[in-house]
């Protein structure tokens, strides 16, 4: 709702000032994005993340021949692949929000802590007993929005550097969650709420549906309205966007609100999954996984471009990697090292410069006579 308000506000003065030509520019810019000439470039943007994902899944298949097996059990699909998609859900939700923040040139370090706060809110409300599930979800999302509001106001209206502004809530937020839980792990018995984390709908886990829904709604909101373009414009050059009539502060505030909302959903999924809220560990370091996923998806941390589907592919890569490590049977002390090396490899694979160098290296013998 808030975001739509922002669009209206920002597009009205723009039409008065620049009139028709501005709208045409926007249209031209949109067409340029999706023009056939660019499709080859777009294809390669998807190619390398998908290639990395396919390679990881292949390694898993070598480690465990049953890896691709899917069974129908208790009315749901069951198998390692489903697990990867299901376990990706919280980080995928975070990454969807994080993509937008990063596209405006910002960053949100507080999403893990916001997950913990929203989880604590859910668990405590459920323990009180007389709250319906929609009310609990609604209040958790409101809490997430409030956290997003704090971040957004600090970044856009108080002019604090995003990394510092959100660092405040990253540290303080976990404290708030611990306070809500009084330092304990709050557990609850509520099968209806637990279904949000471990239930299934039409054969797929509920968290997967939540991610698909969030992805669809966001993608429509961003790519079927001008909001996505505004976000990228603000990320490219906030000052120029302001002169163009885009309410850059409003846009920045709205992306932090959306991120807070996504973090709240992730918190709900994580809490429902283990039927308890662990303020110390819920969402711990997940903000970094989300940022990594966005980067694997090809977004620039300096802002100006984003892709939600590719960020979600990035999340799947990270989760597939975690599963590979668990299944591999290597001693646990190697986990982080392997993770770092594989991620480095994935990122290098995506770098055009590195690919060209690699190509030059392999074709050196052949090209030596002909090309030089």
């Amino acid at each position, binding site marked *: 709702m808030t975001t739509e308000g922002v669009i209206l506000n920002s597009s009205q003065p723009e039409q008065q000032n620049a009139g028709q030509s501005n709208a045409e520019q926007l249209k031209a810019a949109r067409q340029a994005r999706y023009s056939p000439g660019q499709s080859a470039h777009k294809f390669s943007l998807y190619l390398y993340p998908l290639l990395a994902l396919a390679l990881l899944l292949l390694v898993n298949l070598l*480690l*465990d021949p*049953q890896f691709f097996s899917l069974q129908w*059990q*208790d009315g749901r699909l069951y*198998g*390692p692949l489903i*697990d990867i998609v299901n*376990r990706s859900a919280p980080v995928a939700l975070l990454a969807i929000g994080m993509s937008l923040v990063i596209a405006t040139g910002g960053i949100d370090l507080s999403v893990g802590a916001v997950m913990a706060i929203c989880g604590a809110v859910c668990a405590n409300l459920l323990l009180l007993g007389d709250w319906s599930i929609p009310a609990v979800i609604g209040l958790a999302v409101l809490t997430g929005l409030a956290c997003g509001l704090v971040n957004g106001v600090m970044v856009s209206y108080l002019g604090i550097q995003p990394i510092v502004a959100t660092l405040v809530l990253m540290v303080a937020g976990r404290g708030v969650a611990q306070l809500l839980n009084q*330092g*304990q*792990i709050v*557990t609850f018995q509520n099968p209806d709420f637990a279904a949000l984390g*471990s239930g299934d709908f039409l054969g797929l886990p509920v968290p997967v549906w939540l991610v698909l829904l969030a992805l669809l709604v966001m993608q429509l909101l961003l790519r079927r309205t001008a909001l996505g373009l505004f976000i990228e414009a603000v990320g490219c050059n906030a000052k120029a966007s302001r002169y163009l009539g885009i309410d850059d502060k409003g846009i920045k505030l709205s992306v932090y609100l959306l991120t807070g909302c996504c973090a709240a959903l992730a918190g709900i999924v*994580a809490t429902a*999954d*283990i*039927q*308890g809220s*662990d303020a*110390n*560990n*819920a969402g711990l370091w997940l903000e970094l996984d989300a940022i990594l996923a966005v980067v694997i998806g090809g977004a620039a941390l300096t802002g100006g471009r984003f892709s939600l589907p590719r960020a979600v592919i990035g999340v799947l890569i990270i989760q597939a990697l975690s*599963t590979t490590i*668990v*299944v591999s*049977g290597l*001693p*646990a*002390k190697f*986990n982080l090292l392997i993770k770092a090396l594989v991620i480095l490899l994935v990122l290098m694979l995506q770098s055009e410069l590195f690919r060209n160098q690699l190509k030059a290296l392999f074709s050196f013998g052949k090209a030596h006579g002909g090309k030089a």
Partner: protein
Amino acid sequence: MKIKSIVAGLSLCFICHSSFATTIGFAQVGSESGWRTSFSESVKAEAKKRGIDLKFSDAQQKQENQIKAVRSFIAQGVDAIIIAPVVETGWTPVLKEAKRARIPVVIVDRNVQVQDESLFVTRIASDFVEEGRKAAGWLLSQPQAQQQCNIIELQGTVGATAAIDRAKGFNEVLAKHPQAKIVRSQTAEFTRAKGKEVMESLLKAEQGGKDICALWAHNDEMALGAIQAIKEAGLKPGKDLLVVSVDGVPDYFKAMADGDANATVELNPHLGGPAFDVIDAYLKGKKDTAKLISTTGELFLQDTAAAEYEKRRLN
């Protein structure tokens, strides 16, 4: 005259007080976990039982607060000081101050690193290795474990003393039983969410867990997460798979009462009693206490779980 006698009476009272009731300062880490809370409560209860005047300080996980607390204990002239250190290093100066004031110091739970071991009387801590041995001892005495027994191990955070030592103790006992072996071992970082996630993957990698006879988790939280994963895989935790872990948190007692888990070795929070014993002996003249006193909690099984859960839930 009257005033004089009152003053005399009061001072006599003070003398009585200081000569009969021991005053002990206790610098606690904080209240970051349920275990820590019950540790603090246990020390307070023990002090009350023995008629000790306990000065309790909560350092909120900060060493500087603990050092301040210890200095104020020294200034107040307490009879002895108990420290549950936040970190191992940086204790030498304040321990020297205590020694100069001739106040004995007892370290509980975590260790301190000092060059001069005479700076403290002794350290009282849980023996993680023994906890691992107890868990393995119980598991390998079960009828299911007499034939071929494949065990999944969920480790604690990589590098944590509790994880290293519990694994060491368990593996020591396991080595004497060739029919049982750990087939999968992976860290789940001591948390419930990771326990569930890792167990999910490991069960699938082991053909759905049909050939697994037991789960051994380095703490209860991971075991609780894993129990959910076992259920979702269509197996019965506690029956198809034996579940054994360490800690003794209330939720785990509930799981045991429901038949989902089998056994836990309690991480002993009752360190107060032994600490007071040592101080008592020291003040009576016994100066040559061993530098490390280990305690281990009891093994709890399903039969007492329901009663234990009721008892612990109320705390």
